[in-house]
């Protein structure tokens, strides 16, 4: 708003929006950098002489400090090794039918007959498929990691609740813990704690702690003041007030944290298999994928999926009350009856092990030994339909991936597209984009016009050929416009750090891969979300699919992608999209369904067509929710980036993975922090965007 020109001023000065000047300058700068590329290449590619060996410095520091503090951590590791072996031993000793009885009794208490049936089927599948011992090993890690994470998370959450001055630091720590890819901190953990399953345990406890902290704080913050004051007026001491009033009132939220923590622990236990050497289900998936045994990887991937869904439903059943109250069977299964069943089952286990030690042995030949046929036929299918899979891959690769990475200037070569760019073509391209920008300027304002100019430039030049000053200043400007100086400084410092560390090539790879995945997910997922918002049946079909995709650990998405498309960037794209497609579906549906009914009715009453209602009433009103969906999509894509590195990319995730292979702590930390920076920046930017969209109402 330019209110400078008061009434008494004779001539109203020509005011241009400050944003337009800044963005226009940025477009001009980008042009200038590209134009001067020949004579001054450092304008486009970050000069190597300016790079600083940060990774090497970190390694020097860690080489010096690790031997000093190592004994302490090794002793912790030895200390944790004892309960872990005990737990593994106990679960291996427990006969599988007894385990089934116990799990289904707990399921009856948590979710009723249907959940119990599901748990019996899932566990039977694990036995029949031949992955029982591995599943129990994974379970033992989860059973140990969860109490550590829950205890630690609760303590930190209470700390943040009680002492607000701790909170900013705590929140920053949580952001880092959740955005630095787990592989990156596996390296220092390996150095400190030594090789072995305990590292997986510790890594998953660290990874699983943040949701518990956040939910504990949230729950305690949200205890209604009336309840708090009624406790005080009853004469509670501080301790009584905390344990008998505040914690019980916050318990539903804390239990949600417990559910999320358990799922995170499971997901991490499976990823930790990458450091290998431990007979768990994650290792089975990984090794069968490496050996291209797709039958086995599908079988074991299914075990992980069932495992995850079962644990999720079990913990969620305890966390959330059913709106219509417990089913009769849930009510019948009181805590006392449950305890009795468990005791009886354990007695049965002991007597069986002593009296008939050979009964109930696991089947000697399992499905996994008999899937050679599946392997052969899958390989056959992939080979016979190679024209289809390769075709699909090549179309996307040549028409989307390469132009985005190398730009049209790089892709339009005889080798790739079969022709080279002529000056006429370039001129036509420029005219086309300028015309688009002009149209946008006329009907939607300057923001879209400038955005189109940038998009045209980007597509022509490619992410790899984007001048780094334009990148840094562009994100700085965006952050400044959306959230102010603080975020702008953060953005520019972060990009500066990545460039100085010499990771500019992986950075542009990461950005273009993420961006492409996010755009495709938003388009496909958005359409599905619109469909689901307008059709009950679509919603019913999509909901369990989304639930499943969100519950299953990210690792599993690599299996189908790898099976059909082999190693490569396209495969990574598919895997990322499988994981990141859920938020747009969910949030678009939720946003559109929960638009204020009175507004929609008013527009309908004016005689708007359904598409007018959608585009002119529902979409603008649902925008804040949809922005949150975009936020979640970007976060999901970035978190999958590191895992997708396993199927071959050249991005920051791959750098982390390389560092893990070489035990290069410095590179791992630098690349991990870079990914965390991208994630935190994307999060803050989209949240600021959502706030702006929300404040327009």
């Amino acid at each position, binding site marked *: 708003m330019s209110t400078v020109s008061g009434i008494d001023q004779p001539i109203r000065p020509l005011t241009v929006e400050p944003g337009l000047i800044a963005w226009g300058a940025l477009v001009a700068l980008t042009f200038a950098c590209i134009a001067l590329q020949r004579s001054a290449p450092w304008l486009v590619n970050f000069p190597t002489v300016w790079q600083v060996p940060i990774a090497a410095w970190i390694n020097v520091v860690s080489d010096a400090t690790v031997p000093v503090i190592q004994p302490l951590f090794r002793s912790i590791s030895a200390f944790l090794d004892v309960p872990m072996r005990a737990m593994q031993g106990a679960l291996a000793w427990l006969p599988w039918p007894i385990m089934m009885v116990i799990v289904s009794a707990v399921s009856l208490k948590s979710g009723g007959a249907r959940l119990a049936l599901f748990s019996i089927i899932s566990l039977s599948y694990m036995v029949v498929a031949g992955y029982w011992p591995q599943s129990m090993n994974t379970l033992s890690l989860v059973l140990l990691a969860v109490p550590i994470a829950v205890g630690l998370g609760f303590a930190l959450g209470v700390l943040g609740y009680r002492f607000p001055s701790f909170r900013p630091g705590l929140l920053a720590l949580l952001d880092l813990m959740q955005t630095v890819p787990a592989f990156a901190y596996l390296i220092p953990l390996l150095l400190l704690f030594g090789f072995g399953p305990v590292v997986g345990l510790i890594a998953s406890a660290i990874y699983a702690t943040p949701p518990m902290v956040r939910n504990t704080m949230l729950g305690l913050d949200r205890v209604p003041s009336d*309840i708090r004051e009624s406790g005080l007026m009853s*004469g509670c001491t501080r301790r009584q007030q905390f344990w008998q009033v505040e914690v019980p009132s916050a318990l539903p939220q804390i239990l949600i944290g417990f559910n999320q923590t358990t799922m995170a622990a499971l997901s991490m236990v499976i990823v930790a298999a990458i450091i290998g050497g431990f007979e768990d289900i994650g290792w089975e998936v990984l090794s069968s994928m490496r050996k291209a045994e797709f039958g086995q990887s599908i079988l074991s991937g299914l075990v992980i999926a069932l495992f995850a869904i079962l644990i999720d439903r079990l913990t969620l059943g305890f966390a959330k009350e059913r709106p219509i109250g417990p089913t009769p069977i849930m009510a019948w299964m009181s805590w006392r009856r449950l305890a009795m069943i468990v005791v009886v089952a354990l007695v049965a286990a002991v007597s069986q092990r002593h009296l008939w030690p050979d009964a109930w042995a696991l089947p000697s030949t399992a499905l996994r030994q008999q899937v050679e046929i599946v392997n052969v036929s899958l390989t056959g299918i992939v080979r016979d339909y190679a024209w289809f899979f390769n075709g699909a891959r090549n179309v996307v690769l040549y028409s989307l991936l390469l132009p985005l990475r190398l730009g049209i200037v790089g892709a339009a070569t005889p080798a790739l597209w079969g022709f080279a760019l002529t000056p006429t073509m370039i001129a036509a391209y420029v005219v086309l984009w300028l015309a688009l920008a002009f149209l946008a300027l006329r009907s939607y304002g300057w923001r879209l016009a400038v955005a189109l100019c940038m998009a045209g430039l980007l597509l022509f030049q490619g992410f790899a050929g984007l001048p780094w000053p334009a990148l840094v200043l562009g994100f700085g400007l965006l952050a400044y416009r959306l959230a102010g100086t603080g975020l702008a400084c953060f953005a520019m410092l972060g990009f500066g750090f990545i460039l100085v560390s010499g990771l500019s090539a992986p950075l542009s790879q990461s950005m273009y891969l993420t961006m492409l995945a996010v755009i495709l997910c938003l388009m496909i997922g958005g359409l599905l979300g619109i469909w689901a918002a307008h059709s009950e049946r679509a919603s019913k079909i999509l909901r369990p699919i989304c639930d499943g995709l969100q519950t299953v650990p990210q690792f599993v998405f690599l299996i189908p992608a790898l099976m059909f498309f082999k190693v490569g960037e396209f495969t990574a794209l598919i895997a990322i999209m499988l994981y990141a497609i859920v938020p747009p579906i969910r949030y678009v549906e939720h946003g559109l369904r929960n638009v204020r009914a009175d507004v929609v009715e008013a527009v309908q009453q004016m005689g708007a067509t359904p598409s007018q209602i959608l585009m002119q009433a529902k979409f603008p009103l649902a925008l804040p929710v949809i922005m949150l969906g975009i936020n979640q999509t970007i976060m999901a894509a970035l978190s999958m980036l590191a895992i997708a590195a396993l199927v071959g990319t050249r991005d920051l995730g791959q750098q982390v993975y390389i560092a893990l292979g070489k035990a290069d702590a410095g590179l791992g930390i630098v690349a991990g922090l870079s990914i965390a920076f991208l994630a935190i920046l994307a999060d803050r930017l989209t949240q600021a965007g959502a706030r702006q969209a929300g404040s327009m109402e």
Partner: protein
Amino acid sequence: MTQERPIKIACHNVWKAYGNRPSYYFDSRGYKIDPDALADRMRAEGHLPAVVDASFEVATGEIFVIMGLSGSGKSTLVRCLSRLVEPSAGEILLDGRDLLKASPKELIELRRHDMGMVFQNFGLLPHLTVLENVAFPLKIQRKGQKEREERAREMIALVGLDGREKSFPNQLSGGQQQRVGIARSLAVGPALWFLDEPFSALDPLIRRQMQDEFLRLQKMLKKTIIFITHDIAEAFRLADRLAIMRAGKIVQIGRPADIVLNPADNYVAQFTEDTPLLRVIKAGDLATAINGTVVDHDIDAGASIEELIPLITGGVKAFGVVQADGTRRMIAAVDVLAVLERDSRRQAS
């Protein structure tokens, strides 16, 4: 009504200010500043004076209502009285002892035995049943299970919720939940009873029922009550005396009849203009010495003037008014009709 009863709680020049440095405004040199000027200065300097120089006294067994719109500081004031909110300045005397000097331990003891409070949104613990909620203050005091359940059942019967002991709060209606809140606040048998907008979250019909219920309870229990509301009709209906607050300041204190008949300023007058005098003014307010007049009919001093109209049309010329202490005074029918006339003039203007 006029008889002197001991003062239960007194509040002298109590202030509560929010901001960066509220203590800056209150030094102990003891000279008196004009409260309005100080409040204005606080507002100008980025502080929020939520309670401005509040002073009043409440006698044992009295229902004292604090009335004001939202943001007038009434909820903050009642929280100062129980020290849920720490006053910035002033003095609060409970049975003559300075409440603000009580140590945390003493405060807990006071809350455990001498105070009960009812909250607008009930403040029930969602994980406890009705019985456990009502027994909660006793549990906090580590009373035995049997003793506290017995007492809780008694309280539940008192508020008419027998049979719902095993229900959880979310299975009850709003009115029932507030009955639980009332039962809980009475479980320790406090002499001082705070009610912070107890019926504001309820539907009008239920609110009316709960007000009757409240008056019935008070007739039996004879607590000293501080009752917060934003509803002027509720205030006039329940109050022995009421205080009207505006922007943190108490603008008038008095019996309902005093306030409708002699509003302190335009603000109070606007507030009360829709309230029929007939309903607010009680027979005792108009009664004069009997001086040998022949009375036709005896009525209670607490009866509203409204109830006398049918009797006057039936031919009664003078009423005998029986005071709470048994003595008798009188009202002439003409005086009642004068109120009626004044009322209709008010409505017309």
